[in-house]
């Protein structure tokens, strides 16, 4: 454990620099640069909210806020795990030549996605201000939820990164999983339109709890349900444990397969 911390401290600059590099590369040669991290979620929200206001209708108060809160969180998940998934295979050149702790790569991708998410919160703030959503003390839950969600994404990212090294099929499969996950999570529809049969399925979806609690704290100004917060905690801790365990067990063999 001591060794782990020492190693992490020694490589913290690497983590920082890799994140900064991704940031630079992402916005290189784009005119609006980092503004896209704010504009993108805003435009996406507008498109989807137009679709669901004129074509399908749900009776949700402050639908735009409801939507953008869910969308940005889901985007963080899909962006972080998707890039973590190929982080090991994509860093083959580095891993083959220099020794460094390999978890740095998925961790860096999740961190980078989190930075982007944090920037997109500006868009969320704008939408909330526009619809005059009152802020309450329940906002104190936001950092807790985000921290847990970060751990959840990191765990999933570690798991996917390790598995992808051995089976590249995961890459294609995961796209499908993500699509299914979008529809199984109440992002653009209210949770209570689901039939009684589907309800238990949703309750097993950790993402539902994260998004729902987040909306509680930010949009509805109510204290998140204790049991639901527990579900967040358990799924974050569980996912991180599984991901770290699989990654740790397999990491010495990565180099033979990349």
């Amino acid at each position, binding site marked *: 454990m001591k060794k782990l911390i020492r190693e992490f401290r020694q490589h913290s600059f690497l983590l920082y620099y890799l994140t900064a590099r991704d940031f630079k590369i992402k916005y290189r040669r784009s005119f609006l640069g980092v503004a896209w991290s704010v504009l993108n979620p805003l435009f996406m929200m507008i498109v989807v909210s137009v679709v669901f206001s004129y074509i399908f209708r749900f009776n949700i108060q402050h639908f735009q806020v409801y939507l953008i809160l869910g969308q940005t969180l889901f985007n963080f998940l899909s962006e972080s795990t998707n890039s973590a998934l190929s982080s090991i295979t994509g860093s083959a050149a580095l891993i083959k*030549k220099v020794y460094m702790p390999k978890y740095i790569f998925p961790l860096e991708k999740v961190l980078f996605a989190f930075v982007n998410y944090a920037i997109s919160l500006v868009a969320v703030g704008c939408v909330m201000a526009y619809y005059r959503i009152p802020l309450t003390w329940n906002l104190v839950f936001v950092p807790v939820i985000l921290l847990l969600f970060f751990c959840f994404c990191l765990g999933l990212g570690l798991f996917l990164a390790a598995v992808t090294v051995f*089976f*590249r099929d995961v890459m294609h499969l995961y796209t499908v999983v993500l699509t299914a996950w979008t529809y199984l999570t109440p992002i653009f529809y209210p949770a209570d339109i689901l039939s009684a049969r589907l309800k238990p399925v949703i309750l097993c979806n950790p993402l539902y709890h994260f998004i729902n609690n987040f909306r509680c704290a930010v949009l509805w100004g109510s204290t998140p349900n204790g049991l639901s917060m527990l579900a967040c905690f358990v799924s974050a801790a569980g996912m991180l444990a599984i991901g770290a365990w699989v990654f740790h067990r397999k990491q010495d063999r990565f180099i033979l397969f990349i």
Partner: protein
Amino acid sequence: MENESFAIRVDHVSMHFNIASEKLENLKEYFIKLVRRELFFRDFVAVDDVSLEIAKGEVFGIVGTNGSGKSTLLKIISGILKPTTGTVQIDGKIAPLIELGAGFDPDLTARENVYLNGAVLGYSKKFIEQHFDAIIEFAELQDFLDMPIKNYSSGMVARIAFAIATVIKPDILIVDEILSVGDFMFQQKCEKRIAELMSGGTTVVIVSHSIEQIERLCDRVMWLEKSKMCMVGPTADVCEAYRSLAK
């Protein structure tokens, strides 16, 4: 025997590669191989039961023909590969120059790559900032700092890689063929730097096909042949034996 005086201790290290399963790229192939029971068959031994101890401050050379396992052994020593069996003990900080431009991103400029490569080697930001000028000066690349490194010649990349790795006084420096690139002026410069480091107590491990270079620099040499350790000893003896192979 004093443990303290050894920088590197390699104890009965073997490295096996599983050729059959290395080519597997998807589930279908995996199951086909599984059904055919070809999965864990062809075993390739890259390094076979090598043991050696390198003392602190020693300059150690490794010679051998192509594919004899030299680079694999270096990768094991520097921790990139985990040996299948056996252990490696290292005392001190390693600066590996395993391949040219280890950890360079071709799209980034030289300036950015100095930081990236420094970070990869575990330097802090402050340390790189302090030594940035020294690195550039040693590599003599002042005029090309903001050019993406993909436009560099391999010699220029080698210069910068060498400059970054040796700016710190590493306890152990691992050099794989890197001295054979760059013009003769730069080679001389590198050798001078290695001599400087040696007098400062750095342990150096060199792999080279140039026997002359090995003879000039090394205290002791190991001859690796067909994954096995053929001979270890004073430079003159081993180089003599290795030369006679050609006859």
